[in-house]
């Protein structure tokens, strides 16, 4: 029984579920500040909320975006009864984490302690440190690139809606569709500078050459030559793996949302303990207290210290 309780409490600690009401904007989960591009979600909402005869338990997944965790995430959206929706996010690089969230949930732990007395440890930010830097790497094997996150919001292929013959190629502000995409990129760019008007399933280079979405980095490199060159040499962007062997390299879109590529602000982890507060033994006391509680309580209460721990 004790094992089951402890395992359950561990799983529960990983799951954070909230029921959400549209319209909403997903800002961040616990501490990792994952910023999902809201337009993806909103589009998905309009799709499942459009009353297209699906069952009450409509479920779908979409690739979502965040810029701290630097790898693609999947979200599943379930429509429950009573008009409620459940969004479950699964972050691919935090391989154990399952998050569900909506709205702007405040940071836990990070900015709370302003006295500088409480020591924080990495255990307070578990989800941040759970990613696997060696994903897809084999010692002696070749370099790999991280999977590029899909930004199509669950729609694919684009040609399902876009018919090249009916395409309006005049430069304009989109108001009917894709109007949630706020373009903050370059001085005077618009969709067809990167997307191909003749084939919406592809991007195009300045030369007119059509490229797959997965090769978007080449497109970025046309204008951003210096960072592109640095990136190829390993001097720009995140690399993990082996300094003397195979490396896992993130691609442009893992960190830069192409429609608004500036890196988003993040929550900092707490500052170090000020010297005047060093050695108060706060963590030790808390641990002793937890043990005391666990010793006193029944199996049910035994799960409580775990929950408290994750809050610290």
């Amino acid at each position, binding site marked *: 029984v004790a094992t089951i309780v402890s395992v359950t409490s561990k799983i529960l600690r990983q799951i954070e579920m909230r029921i959400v009401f549209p319209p909403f904007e997903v800002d961040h989960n616990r501490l990792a500040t994952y910023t999902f591009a809201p337009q993806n979600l909103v589009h998905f909402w309009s799709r499942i909320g459009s009353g297209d005869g699906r069952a009450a338990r409509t479920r779908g997944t979409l690739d979502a975006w965040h810029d701290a965790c630097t790898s693609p995430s999947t979200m599943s959206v379930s429509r429950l009864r009573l008009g409620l929706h459940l969004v479950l996010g699964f972050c691919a690089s935090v391989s154990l984490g399952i998050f569900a969230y909506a709205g702007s949930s405040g940071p836990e732990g990070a900015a709370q302690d302003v006295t500088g007395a409480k*020591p924080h440890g*990495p255990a307070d930010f578990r989800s941040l440190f759970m990613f696997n830097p060696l994903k897809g790497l084999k010692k002696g094997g070749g370099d790999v690139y991280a999977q590029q996150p899909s930004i199509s919001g669950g729609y694919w292929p684009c040609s399902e809606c876009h018919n090249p013959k009916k395409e309006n190629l005049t430069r304009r502000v989109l108001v009917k569709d894709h109007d949630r995409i706020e373009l903050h990129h370059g001085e005077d760019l618009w969709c067809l500078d990167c997307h191909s008007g003749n084939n919406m399933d592809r991007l195009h280079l300045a030369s007119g050459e059509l490229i797959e979405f997965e090769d978007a980095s080449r497109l970025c490199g046309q204008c951003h030559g210096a960072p592109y060159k640095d990136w190829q040499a390993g001097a720009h962007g*995140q*690399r993990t793996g082996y300094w003397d062997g195979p490396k896992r390299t*993130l691609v442009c879109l893992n960190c830069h949302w192409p429609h608004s590529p500036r890196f988003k602000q993040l929550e900092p982890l707490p500052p*170090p303990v000020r010297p005047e507060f060093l050695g108060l033994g706060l963590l030790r006391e808390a641990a002793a207290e937890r043990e005391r509680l666990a010793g006193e309580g029944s199996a049910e209460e035994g799960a409580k210290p775990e929950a408290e721990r994750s809050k610290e």
Partner: protein
Amino acid sequence: MSGAERGEGLTRREALAAGGATLAALFLSACSGEGLEAFFQKRFNELSLDDVRRVIDRLQRTYTQRFGKAVTVADTPAQDGVLFGYGLDLSHCIGCRRCAYACVKENNQSRDPQIQWIRVLRQRRDKGVSLEGADPYYNPEKVPEEGFLYIPVQCQQCENPPCTKVCPVGATWKERDGIVVVDYDWCIGCRCCVSACPYGARHMNWGDPYLPPEELNADTHYLGNRPRPRGVIEKCTFCIQRVRKGRYPACVEICPVGARKFGNLLDPKSEIRYLLEHKRVFVLKAELKTEPKFFYFFSA
């Protein structure tokens, strides 16, 4: 001519010798075999291969018993033709402190009293890269903030390290691959190196390090992240347990903006050499001629 031969009973010298021998005998008999071995353990870089094996076996047993899970203590030596160098891109660093906490997790620092090998300093942009008045305790809602620069500082792995020179017992030295290490079993905790280091990179275990067993990183190196006792100095080792096996340090891998770069300075094709050749790199406190192998640069 001794006093005994002259028939005058015990001389002062003999009395002292006898007393000392008795004390030593008492002390030794009070120790277990292992304690005895630990007491007479030599400095790590003077140990024979057999001794290293024995010491490491003993440490593994001790740690495994103490933490209740299998702990490995490696003694992976430096590779030939390798000199480690580190690059940090100040135009990308956003001061999020993920490196500092990833380091604590990887390197088994004491959680309380808190020890962090990486200290991220916030400096006003108009002051440039100056350590004067830089603040490690900044705590805004979000980083980066407008008008500020973030300068993470950790051991600079100097080629000409002042810290190793002042150690009265030789408990700290520079390895062949350029990593400055500490033998925690030889350190006497005098903190001369702490005052000699111009970068504040050495940290004293003032109290008993508190490290919950479930948070222990069991993959350790003798000269790196094995659990430390109270009263010894510790410092960044470029994650010696990782880099000697070819991996990147933990801080490099966690950095969400990819500001941290690492590689072999002797390999012309390495990332760090690319930086040295293509960026205008600088080191902290260059005027002290400590020759750090930790290079800062602005990529944009």
